[in-house]
């Protein structure tokens, strides 16, 4: 990396640039939450005046988060992340893989925490015992000869030094997922009446019709309410049909969409139509007919000589209860005029027979359609980020050296440790470890 360390490179690797990105992205985002997004051109002229609206238009403020300059800021942020990570990784890599047995003794003498001891035991006996104690405390010591003595070294979780780079990478992975989504993803919506078949949807941006290579039949839409009148559930019963065959059935609600062939269908909205299914059954013969009825339009059931129509409609109340006034004639006697209350069954006596009437309002369900192959990279990035943050904030690279040597016929010990963060915690652990050495009867240590 040495030769590329020019000022240009340093600029892109700098934390200053990162802070600049944080602040500008934050400030731009604030603007985006204050200025309403994705409104019509007229809205901005009316609210902000013509000049401001024109400036907004030039800077693409009405769709700010997709404006070229906002995307440029995000790109700058990404470049900053990449360059700074490349810039720092080699040093970190060295720290992780470095041969700590090569550490110079005079460096150990400057470390904190450190302890010095003398022992009456032989050097080799001390080495074996200390190694054993380190192993007992969960360390995996390595041994090397150094400046006439023996150096024992053990470390825990050196890789946690990569933690912050895992976080940086996670952000890039999330951005990658977002880019995949915007390049290959599809998003739109469709409104479909009950009993109808969906074979395409409308793109969100272009409003163009996009065909699906399968069909979805809307079997039913149900709207239910709590006693308070608040909506309880919007449910669409859907059947996926492909090549004329019913592939799968699923009832979707707001938080439980239908997945098929990479597409996801969400319950997004609904519409109550001024049309009704009216079911009539002749109670004597059992003959039955269903009409799709609209107020004011006359309908005929030729085979039974029946004519009927909705002559009045009381719109649904808060709980979805509506009333229909029906005019009905079977050609025998006076026509019947009566109220159908919502879905309740009503029997109507006629000279020859009795008819049972039932009605149901026809709903259309609004489905949001989306296909986003970038979702999984985004999720993987999110998991990486949380993992990386925990590693970067709360785990530390802990190192312990024990240098055992002879001086004027006596065995001496130098115990030193280092941790890249959370030093007080490490010191507690270090003290517990040296206490174990001190308390050991074979070692017979005395502080020096």
């Amino acid at each position, binding site marked *: 990396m040495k030769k590329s360390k020019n000022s240009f490179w340093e600029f892109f690797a700098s*934390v200053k640039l*990162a*802070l600049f990105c*944080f*602040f500008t*992205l*934050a400030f731009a*985002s*604030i603007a*985006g*939450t*204050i200025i*309403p*997004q994705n409104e019509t051109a007229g809205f901005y002229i009316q609210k902000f005046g013509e000049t401001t609206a024109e400036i907004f238009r030039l800077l693409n403020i009405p769709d700010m*988060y997709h404006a070229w300059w906002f995307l440029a800021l995000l790109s700058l942020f990404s470049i900053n992340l990449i360059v700074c990570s490349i810039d720092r990784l080699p040093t970190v890599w060295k720290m992780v893989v470095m041969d700590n047995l090569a550490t110079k003794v005079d460096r150990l003498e400057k470390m904190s925490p450190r302890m010095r001891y003398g022992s009456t035991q032989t050097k080799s006996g001390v080495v074996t015992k200390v190694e054993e104690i380190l192993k007992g405390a969960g360390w995996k010591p390595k041994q090397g000869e150094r400046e006439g003595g023996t150096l024992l070294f053990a470390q825990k979780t050196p890789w946690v030094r990569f933690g*912050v780079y895992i976080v940086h990478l996670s952000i890039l992975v999330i951005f990658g997922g*977002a880019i995949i989504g915007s390049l290959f993803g599809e*998003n739109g919506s469709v409104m479909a009446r009950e009993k109808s078949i969906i074979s395409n949807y409308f793109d969100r941006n272009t409003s163009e019709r996009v065909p699906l290579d399968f069909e979805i039949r809307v079997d039913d839409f149900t709207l239910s309410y*709590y006693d*308070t009148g*608040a*909506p*309880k*559930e*919007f449910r669409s019963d859907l059947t996926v049909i492909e090549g004329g065959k019913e592939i799968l059935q699923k009832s979707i*609600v*707001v*938080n*439980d*969409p239908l997945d098929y062939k990479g597409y*996801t269908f*969400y*319950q*997004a909205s609904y519409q109550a139509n001024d049309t009704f299914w009216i079911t009539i059954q002749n109670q004597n013969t059992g003959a039955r007919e269903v009409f799709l009825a609209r107020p004011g339009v006359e309908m005929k059931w030729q085979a039974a000589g029946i004519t009927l129509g909705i002559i009045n409609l009381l719109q649904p109340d808060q709980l979805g209860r509506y009333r229909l006034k029906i005019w009905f004639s079977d050609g025998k006697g006076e026509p019947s005029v009566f109220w159908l209350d919502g879905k309740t069954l009503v029997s109507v006596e006629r000279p020859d027979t009795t008819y049972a009437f039932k009605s149901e309002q026809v709903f259309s369900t609004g489905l*949001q*359609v*989306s296909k*986003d192959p970038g*979702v999984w990279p*985004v*999720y993987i990035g*999110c998991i990486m*980020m*949380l993992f990386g*943050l*925990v590693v970067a*904030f*709360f785990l530390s690279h802990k190192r312990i050296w024990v240098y055992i040597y002879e001086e004027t016929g006596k065995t001496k010990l130098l115990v030193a440790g280092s941790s890249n963060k959370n030093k007080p915690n490490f010191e507690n652990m270090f003290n517990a470890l040296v206490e174990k050495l001190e308390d050991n009867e074979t070692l017979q240590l005395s502080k020096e």
Partner: protein
Amino acid sequence: MDSSKLLGITTFIYLFSSAIYLVMFIFRTKKIGMLATVVTIIGLLVQTAGIGMRWVESYQMGIGHAPLSNMYESLVFFSWSIVLLYLIVEFIYKNKVIGAFAVPFAFASMAYASLSPEFSSAITPLVPALQSNWLIAHVFTCFIGYAAFAVACGTGIMYLIKSRDTGDSPGSLLATLPSLKVIDDITHKIILFGFIWLSAGIISGAVWANSAWGTYWSWDPKETWSLITWFIYASALHARFTRGWGGKRIAWIAIFGFLAVIFTYYGVNFLLSGLHSYGAS
């Protein structure tokens, strides 16, 4: 005894405990410190029982859901998280003065929830958009983060007060506060903790949004403000890790960051329109 009574009592206990912590700090009467802790723990237990009962009551009403579904319930949970977190900090750092700067936030949250006429404390059924298991995960992660930032704001204020200490009178009011170095360390650690939970909160929100609306990020004002808050704390962490920022500057960021949290949590619902509008009731 029903949940609303228990939560009402909680408000008074937190008022009482805030008062004891403040008296302890202002009049340097360390002896009542234990009383403050005991009262706070009792408050937390009563509140936990209250939240638990509210949960049970919602099932008895046939509209069972976790008590995290509206502004009232979230304020109660916010206060609960602050006290829980504060008690952990008190236990780790063995310092009770921090309570004078943290518990009042919990009291304020409870008082606002119970007294404000805007929020109804009635248990209401969940609208379809909130009927998801992600509700608990999302609200829980966000509010643990918010609570951490509230406590960090408290220690930040504490730092700024302490930093005016000239150090010449050992018996002075400010001498009872922990040393600047310790306060700085506590603030930093709590921000780290809060940052992880805020990230988890944003992520759980994104996953939930994707399962309900088909998009994990839609630049809705609430989402955007949570990101702004995230940027503020991220810049604090970077400034500290690489440029050694600490002391007053981090203390100010802890305070400004918390203002952004308050705006994300509260301001967005009332001042800006968006998908989180049900949080306003």
